[in-house]
C-alpha cells in the first residue's frame, strides 16, 4: 500500500468517524430537547400557579356603635346573624379606617381594595367570636383580586395608569397599608372549598374537585367491571373465530378514536336519545368510561396472557372446572396488572376535557355539586374556563388548577407503579 492511498483512507475514516460523532450528537440534542420541554412546561406552570395557594388579607378595625352592639350577637344564632344587614355598617367602618379620605369617589375606590364579600367575612368573624367581642375589634379581611395580584408582585406598576385595573390612588393606599404592616399572606384554604365565581378572589376549585370526584367514581364503577369481565371472556373463553377477531380489531380501533368523538356519542345518544340530565357528572362519567374501557380491556388481556399455562393446567388437573380455574387461579394473578391498567385509564379520563365540553359540563356553576345528578364541571374543564377569563388573577388560578390536576395524575401513576412493583409476579 503506498502512502497516498493510506492518506486517502485515513481521511476517509476521519470523515466517517466525524459523521458518526455528529449523528450521535443529534440524538443527544433530540433527547435534551424533549427533556427541556418537560422541564419548561413544569417550571412554567408551577412558577405561574404556586402563588394561588396563598391569599392577601388586610387588617381593619371595626368599632361597634349604639345600633350594632356586641351584646346583641350573644343571643343570636348563626343563621340569624347571617341574615342581619350589616352592609352599610361594615362599609362605614372600613371608611373610618381611612380618616383622611373624604371624597365620595375616593371612598368607592377604597372599598374596591377589599373582597366584594367583606360583609360576609365580618359576619363570619362575629359568629366565631360572638361571646368575647370588645367594643372595637381588629380583623383581617380578604383583599380584592387586583390588590392580591399587586401584593404577590404579579402586577407591573410600569403600565400606564389608564390601562391598569388599580389606580395610582389605590396603590398609594395599598403602600400605606403595607407601611403600617397591615397586609399579610395566608394559606388560601377557601380556594379548595369554594365553587366557581365571576369574582376572581372568590373563585375556587371546590365545585370542580367534587365534580371530578363523582365523574371518576362513575368511570370506575362502569369501566372496571365491564373491562375486566370482557377481557376475561375474550382471553379465556372465546374461541378464535371471525366474530372475536372483529371484537379485537374493534377494541384496538376504539382505543385510538379521538376523544371528541366520544363527546359526540355522549351528546347524540346519552343526552338526545336517552334524555339523561345535561351537564351532570353522571353523563360525563358514562362518556369517559366508554373511552376508558378499551384501555382496561387491553391491559387486562395482556396480564391474563402473561399468566403461565402451568397455573391453568395445575388447577384443571386437580379437578377444577374451567370457570373455577379462571376465577380462582388465573384472575387473582392477573388482577394487579388489570388494576394498574384501570388506574392509568382513570388518570387519563381525569385529564380529559374535550368530550365534557360537548355534553355541557362547561357551564358556569357556582354551587358545589352534592350528587352525580347535579350540574358540575371537572378539574380540567375548570382550568379551560378560567383560561378564557380575561382578568389577570385567573391566569394564576388556571395554573393552580393545572398544578392540582397534575399532582393527582402523578399520584395515580405512582400508585399504579407501586401496585405493579408490589404485587405483579414475574414468571
Amino acid at each position: 500500500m503506498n502512502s497516498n492511498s493510506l492518506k486517502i483512507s485515513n481521511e476517509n475514516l476521519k470523515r466517517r468517524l466525524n459523521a458518526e460523532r455528529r449523528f450521535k450528537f443529534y440524538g443527544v440534542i433530540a433527547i435534551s430537547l424533549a427533556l427541556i420541554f418537560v422541564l419548561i412546561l413544569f417550571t412554567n406552570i408551577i412558577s405561574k400557579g404556586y402563588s394561588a395557594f396563598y391569599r392577601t388579607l388586610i387588617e381593619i378595625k371595626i368599632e361597634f356603635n349604639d345600633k350594632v352592639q356586641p351584646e346583641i350577637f350573644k343571643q343570636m344564632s348563626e343563621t340569624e346573624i347571617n341574615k342581619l344587614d350589616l352592609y352599610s355598617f361594615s362599609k362605614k367602618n372600613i371608611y373610618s379606617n381611612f380618616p383622611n379620605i373624604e371624597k365620595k369617589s375616593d371612598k368607592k375606590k377604597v372599598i374596591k381594595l377589599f373582597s366584594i364579600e367583606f360583609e360576609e367575612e365580618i359576619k363570619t368573624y362575629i359568629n366565631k367570636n360572638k361571646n368575647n367581642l370588645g367594643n372595637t375589634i381588629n380583623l383581617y379581611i380578604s383583599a380584592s383580586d387586583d390588590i392580591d395580584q399587586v401584593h404577590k408582585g404579579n402586577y407591573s406598576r410600569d403600565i400606564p395608569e389608564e390601562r391598569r385595573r388599580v389606580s395610582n390612588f389605590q396603590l398609594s393606599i395599598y403602600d400605606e397599608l403595607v407601611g403600617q404592616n397591615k397586609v399579610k399572606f395566608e394559606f388560601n384554604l377557601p380556594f379548595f372549598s369554594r365553587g366557581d365565581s365571576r369574582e376572581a378572589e372568590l373563585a375556587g376549585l371546590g365545585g370542580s374537585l367534587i365534580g371530578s370526584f363523582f365523574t371518576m367514581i362513575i368511570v370506575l364503577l362502569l369501566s372496571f367491571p365491564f373491562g375486566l369481565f370482557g377481557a376475561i371472556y375474550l382471553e379465556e373463553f372465546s374461541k378464535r373465530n371471525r366474530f372475536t377477531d372483529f371484537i379485537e380489531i374493534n377494541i384496538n380501533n376504539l382505543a385510538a378514536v379521538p376523544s371528541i368523538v366520544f363527546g359526540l356519542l355522549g351528546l347524540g345518544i346519552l343526552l338526545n336519545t336517552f334524555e339523561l340530565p345535561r351537564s351532570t357528572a353522571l353523563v360525563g362519567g358514562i362518556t369517559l368510561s366508554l373511552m376508558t374501557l378499551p384501555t382496561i380491556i387491553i391491559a387486562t388481556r395482556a396480564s391474563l396472557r402473561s399468566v403461565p399455562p402451568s397455573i391453568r393446567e395445575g388447577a384443571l388437573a386437580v379437578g377444577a372446572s374451567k370457570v373455577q380455574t379462571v376465577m380462582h387461579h388465573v384472575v387473582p394473578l392477573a388482577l394487579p396488572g388489570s388494576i394498574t391498567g384501570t388506574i392509568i385509564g382513570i388518570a387519563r379520563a381525569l385529564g380529559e376535557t374535550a368530550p365534557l365540553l360537548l355534553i355541557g359540563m362547561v357551564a358556569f356553576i357556582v354551587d358545589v355539586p352534592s350528587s352525580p345528578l347535579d350540574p358540575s364541571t371537572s378539574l380540567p374543564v375548570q382550568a379551560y374556563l378560567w383560561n378564557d377569563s380575561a382578568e389577570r388573577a385567573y391566569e394564576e388560578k388556571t395554573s393552580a388548577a393545572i398544578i392540582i390536576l397534575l399532582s393527582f395524575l402523578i399520584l395515580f401513576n405512582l400508585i399504579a407503579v407501586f401496585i405493579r412493583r408490589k404485587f405483579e409476579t414475574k414468571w
Partner: protein
Amino acid sequence: MGLILLLLFISYALGSFYLGYSKSRKVRVLNEGRPISLDKYYGYYIAIWSVVPAIIIFSVISIFDGFFIKNYVLSDLYSLGIDSSEVELLFTQIENTRNGIKLFNSEDVLIVNAVSKLNYIENVFNVSLVIIILCSSSLFLLFSYRKIKIDFDAREIVEKFLLITFFVCSLVAILVTIGIIFSLLYETIRFFSQVPIFDFLFGTNWSPQRAFVTDASDTADIENAFGAIPLFSGTFLIAFIAMCVSIPIGLLTAIYMSEYAKSNVRNTAKPIIEILAGIPTVVYGFFAVITIAPFIRSMGGSIGLDVSSESALAAGLVMGIMIIPFVSSLSDDVISSVPQSLREGSYAMGATKSETIKKVIIPAALPGIIGSFLLAVSRAIGETMIVVMAAGLVANLTANPLEASTTITTQIVVILIGDQEFDSPKTMSAFALGLTLFVMTLILNFIALRVVKKYTEKYE
C-alpha cells in the same frame, strides 16, 4: 328511592344465598350423601334467580315509565287540543312546579290539576314497582328453591350465567362502536339532506353562524356556509407543523435510546419523555396560549413579521411536543425488534454505528416507523384542546402558519359548546365533521396497526 332499591336487592341476594346454602346442607344430612355441587353454588343459584330477573324487570319498567307518566298527566290537555310542540314545554313546567319552582302560570288550574295527577301517578308507579319486584323475585326464589335436589347440578348453571355475563361485557366495545357510527351517521344524513355533500367536502367558505341567521327556506345561503375545505386545510397545516417537530425529535430520540444510550440513561430519560404523553391536553393548550404564542409573537415582531396572537404555528409546535413520545416509544420498540444479526453483519463489513443505523436498521424498520408516524398523525388530527385554546376559532383558508386557522375539532367544539338550537343545520354539521374525523382517524389507525403488526410478525 334508588338507595332503598339497591339495599333491597343486596339484602335479597344475601338472604336467598343463605337459603340455598342451608337447603344444600339439609339435603346432605337428609340423604346422607353429598349434593353434586358445593353448598355455595346452591346459594349462588338461588341468589341469581331471585335478583337478576327482578333487576331486568326494574330496568325495563324504568325505561318506559317516563313515557306512560307523561301521557297520563297530559291526557286531559291533549283533549283540549294542545299543539304537540308545546307539550314538552308544558310538561317541564308541570315538573318544575311540582319541584317547588314558582312559575308565571303556577296558579293555573290546568297546571295545578296536572301536578296532582303527576304526584298521584308517580306514587302509583313507585309502589307497584316495589310490589312487582318483590312478587317476581319471591316467585323465582320459590321455584329455584324447590329445584334443589341431591342430583341437581347448580354449578353448571351458575357457571353458564357467569359466561353469559362475561360475553355480554365483551360486547360493550362493539355497542360503543355501533353507538358512535349510529349517532354520527343519523345526524350526518339529515345534514346532507339539507346541504349537498359536494358543497360540504369541496366548499371553501365555512361560516355556520350565517346559515343560522337566515331562514331555512333560503337554501342558497346554507349551501355556501358549510364548505369544509378551510377546516381540512387548517387541520392538516397544524398536523404538518406538529409532525415537523415530533418526527425528527421523536425518531432521533428513539434511535439514540435503542442504539446508543446506556441502560441507566435509558431508564431515567424514557419515563421522563413519556410524561409528555400523560399530560392532559388542556395543560398543553394553556402552555401554548400563555408561553409559546407570546414568545412566537415577540420573535416574529423582532424580525418584522406580523404574527397573530392565535397562530397555527404555536398550536402546531405544542402539539408536536405532545406527540414526541408517541413517535419515540413506538419507533423505539420497532427499532429494538430489528434482529441483532443484521447489526452484526453490518459491523462485520466495517460500517460504523451511524452507517449501520442509516443504511441497515432504518430501512429494515421503515414500515414500523411509518406506522408510528401514521398513528401520530391520527393523534394530531383528533387533538382538540390545544387547537381550541390556541389556534383560532374563525375559518381561514391559508397556508401561512403565522395566521390563525381553525380545525375540524375546534369547529365541533365551537358549534356544540353551550346551548344548541335543535335540528338546525349548524348543529348537525358538527356531527358531519365528527364523522369525517372518525373516518379519517379510523383509516389512519387501521393502516398503521396493520403495518406495525405485519412488520413485527416478519422478525418474530
